């Protein structure tokens, strides 16, 4: 019992450090900084490099890690976040999400994905109180945190710069008017937050005893939930949130096992968002004061795609490739088609309803597993399984997401990310092994197992998807959903039940994600939970943003470029993600309406 409590405190310690960084940046910049998440992984890996590989003393390594992380943070702010200040915060959030993927995978390329044993710098169980064991290492970590937090509090309360940070957090405009160098303040906040992230990363490595480049995301999500729990922007709240969550989690793991971790975090997040969206210490924002929803693009006129281009695309995709393409091209083409289905279905959520959902891997996984299970166990034919998978993904995701539609802006993106992560976590809990032997489709007695047959099936699926999406877009319903993304308050005043239509848009997107998942499962004939990663969610978002979030045909172009080109260039998976991230950052920065939209 006390062991669990200690474990909770130590976990909470890490989350508190991370949460303070997230809250600090959110306070002064109004941006949820996903890049922060990566510093947890990066801090751990750098410390491992210095201590385990290079044999440097820990007391030299630790400050060096902090300096490197802080410096990287500064670089990110200058290069990526600050230039987006004039756009909606959503644009900056998306870019930091891309940065975090780039950092994680660059670090994976540098350090490989292996779990590295982290050396015991200090004794870990040299003290006993009754049955409770703990070590110097634990005391030092808690001590450092206490000192850091104390110093931060004093700095914010009494320091000139600290005052400037608080002023900026309260009112950026006014702070600027008073002569506070707001951009410098934001730089400082970013540096502090990144260094804290690095520190938290080192602590995780110390505590768990292993370091891994991709561990950042999980810790980052938890730290974000902690920051939300405490009230985004409130540093005291972040500390409390961190410890509360750490202890909750430790007890959860104690009773339900390690795989329950993500699920616990997710449910805490949803509960907080529903019951007290402002967190313990934050203020609940008034309905109309947080204009964070909506698409950050908006301005700009889409190119009209001429009829001949449609016909040309249909001829190339539907005739030339199937007739002349080799198996490699057809297999790649099938991937392009499947992702185009998923992305085209996603445009109604990301573009029209203005909900930037970050967890589409969730419904894709549901679709894939539904299809695999019902074709193998119930003998249901492929043709029936595909639509059923779509329905199952739509229904299950909608039920899970039903509480979040009153939530706004950043929170909704984070909540959808949490839902996606939780879905995959639940699948991993229930079906940890992969599923083999998912049948290829057949027609009567003919097995349609050739690449060309499967390509054509998916081509038809894409044509149907585009037809449906364009029908919706042109209908009254489509306009109503767009009004929700454009201005929620005005939509409500026009009699539009905003929450319902967001949920409907999300369900439509989940349906097509489920269809896509089913098609993927039958193409691979094997699935396991590691396929449905954050990468997949990021990919869907990047495709859609590249093509122009509101435009279903744009999704096809985005898919051709991001899936087709990457495959044909034979990039490694890690390098691909780095490229996706870069593309996302560049598109958000220079072509916020997507490649098909002229800038206004």
């Amino acid at each position: 019992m006390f062991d669990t409590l200690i474990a909770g405190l130590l976990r909470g310690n890490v989350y508190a450090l991370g949460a303070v960084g997230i809250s600090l940046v959110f306070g002064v910049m109004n941006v949820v900084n996903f890049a922060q998440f990566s510093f947890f992984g990066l801090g751990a890996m750098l410390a491992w490099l210095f201590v385990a590989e290079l044999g440097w003393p820990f007391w030299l390594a630790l400050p060096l890690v902090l300096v490197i992380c802080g410096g990287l943070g500064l670089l990110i702010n200058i290069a990526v976040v600050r230039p987006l200040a004039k756009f909606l915060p959503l644009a900056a959030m998306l870019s930091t999400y891309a940065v975090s993927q780039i950092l994680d995978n660059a670090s994976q390329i540098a350090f490989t994905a292996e779990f590295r044993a982290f050396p015991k710098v200090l004794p870990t169980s040299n003290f006993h109180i009754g049955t409770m064991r703990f070590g110097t290492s634990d005391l030092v970590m808690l001590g450092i945190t206490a000192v850091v937090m104390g110093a931060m509090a004093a700095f914010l309360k009494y320091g000139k710069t600290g005052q400037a940070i608080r002023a900026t957090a309260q009112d950026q405009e006014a702070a600027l008017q008073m002569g506070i160098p707001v951009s410098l303040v934001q730089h400082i906040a970013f540096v502090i937050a990144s260094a804290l992230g690095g520190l938290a990363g080192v602590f995780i490595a110390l505590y768990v005893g292993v370091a891994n480049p991709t561990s950042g995301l999980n810790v980052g999500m938890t730290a974000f939930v902690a920051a939300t729990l405490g009230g985004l922007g409130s540093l005291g709240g972040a500390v409390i949130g961190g410890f509360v969550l750490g202890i909750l989690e430790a007890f959860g793991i104690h009773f339900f096992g390690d795989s329950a971790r993500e699920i616990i975090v997710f449910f805490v997040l949803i509960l907080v968002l529903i019951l007290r969206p402002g967190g313990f210490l934050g203020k609940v924002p008034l309905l109309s004061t947080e204009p964070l929803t909506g698409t950050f693009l908006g301005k700009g006129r889409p190119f009209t795609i001429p009829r001949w281009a449609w016909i040309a695309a249909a001829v190339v995709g539907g005739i030339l490739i199937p007739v002349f393409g080799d198996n490699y091209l057809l297999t790649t083409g099938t991937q392009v088609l499947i992702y185009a289905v998923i992305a085209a279905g996603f445009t109604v959520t990301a573009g029209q309803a203005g909900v930037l959902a970050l967890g589409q891997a969730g419904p894709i996984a549901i679709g894939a597993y539904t299809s695999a299970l019902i074709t193998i166990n119930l003998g249901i034919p492929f043709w029936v399984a595909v639509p059923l998978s779509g329905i199952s993904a739509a229904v299950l995701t909608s039920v899970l997401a039903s509480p979040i539609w009153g939530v706004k802006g950043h929170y909704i993106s984070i909540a959808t990310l949490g839902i996606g992560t939780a879905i995959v976590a639940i699948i991993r809990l229930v079906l940890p092994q992969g599923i083999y032997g998912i049948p290829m489709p057949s027609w009567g007695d003919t097995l349609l197992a050739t690449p060309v047959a499967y390509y054509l099936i998916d081509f038809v699926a894409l044509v149907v998807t585009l037809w449906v999406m364009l029908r919706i877009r042109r209908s009254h319903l489509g306009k109503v959903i767009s009004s929700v993304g454009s201005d929620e308050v005005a939509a409500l005043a026009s009699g539009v039940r905003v929450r319902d239509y967001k949920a409907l848009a999300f369900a439509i997107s989940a349906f097509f994600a489920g269809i896509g998942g089913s098609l993927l499962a039958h193409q691979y004939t094997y699935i396991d939970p590691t396929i449905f990663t954050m990468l997949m969610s990021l990919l869907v978002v990047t495709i859609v943003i590249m093509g122009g979030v509101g435009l279903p045909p744009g999704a096809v172009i985005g898919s051709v470029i991001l899936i087709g080109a990457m495959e044909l260039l034979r990039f490694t998976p890690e390098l691909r993600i780095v490229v996706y991230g870069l593309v996302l950052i560049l598109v958000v920065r220079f072509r916020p309406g997507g490649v098909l939209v002229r800038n206004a």
Partner: protein
Amino acid sequence: MSTPLLEVVDLARHFEGLKAVDGITFSVAAGEVVSIIGPNGSGKTTTLNLVTGTIPGHGGTITLEGERIDHGDTARIAEHGIARTFQNGRVFATLSVADNIEVGIHSTLDATRPFRRLSNLFALRWIPLIAELFVAIVGTPGSRRESAEIESVVATEIHRFEARLGSRRDDPAYSLSYANRRRTEIARALALRPKLLVLDEPTAGMNQSETAEVLAQLLELKAEGQAILLVEHKLDLVMTVSDRIIVMDGGRIIASGTPEAVRTDPAVIEAYLGRRRGAEEGATHD
């Protein structure tokens, strides 16, 4: 006397101790134009926000045609028949002028939105949504007929502002001038065929000729029998168009009545000339 169209009794709302609206009571009859005036911060816009459910109230009742509408559900209040515009003009920036107006029609549609009554039942809300999706994709004879009606309402509302919006029908709203956005907003509100039209400073930021245009339009609506609740700073316009004027100060109603009665009310003059001077004069008079 029959029940008034809108009846507000003892309505209150505070913001962290500040009583923005402090127990006000008023009504609007069918076909009547009622204006709320008062100094900045007197609670006018808050009153509108409360009536339209944009923000929840802290006490009091609001009824429309005898039916309670103070449930705080903005979309349902719109369905009851209250349409509004906003102080700074909120249009759907990415939608065209015609589509903006079409969204305004939303709550009057039936064939396009089958089973929409179920929308108010929490557990069954998904049924009308799925039905609406189905109709949007495949269409039904009824929905096609209704589409034609939508077209005609959009045409009527654009025609109302023909000189200004006629040529901009398919342009996205963000490309419009400020005044045209506000016209689009009014057109969208009218497309709802509201029992009560709520306008929050329709002439804010407009020059003299644009203001005159708004006045002409308001008089036209009044002649059509449209009931209007108006918040407005330009007193000439208010005096011309209103049947009745409510004067607010410090979250309370300090006077109400016909334009003539209000114009000469000493409390109103005091509120408008400034409290301090009024108070000093009051002290010497005492």
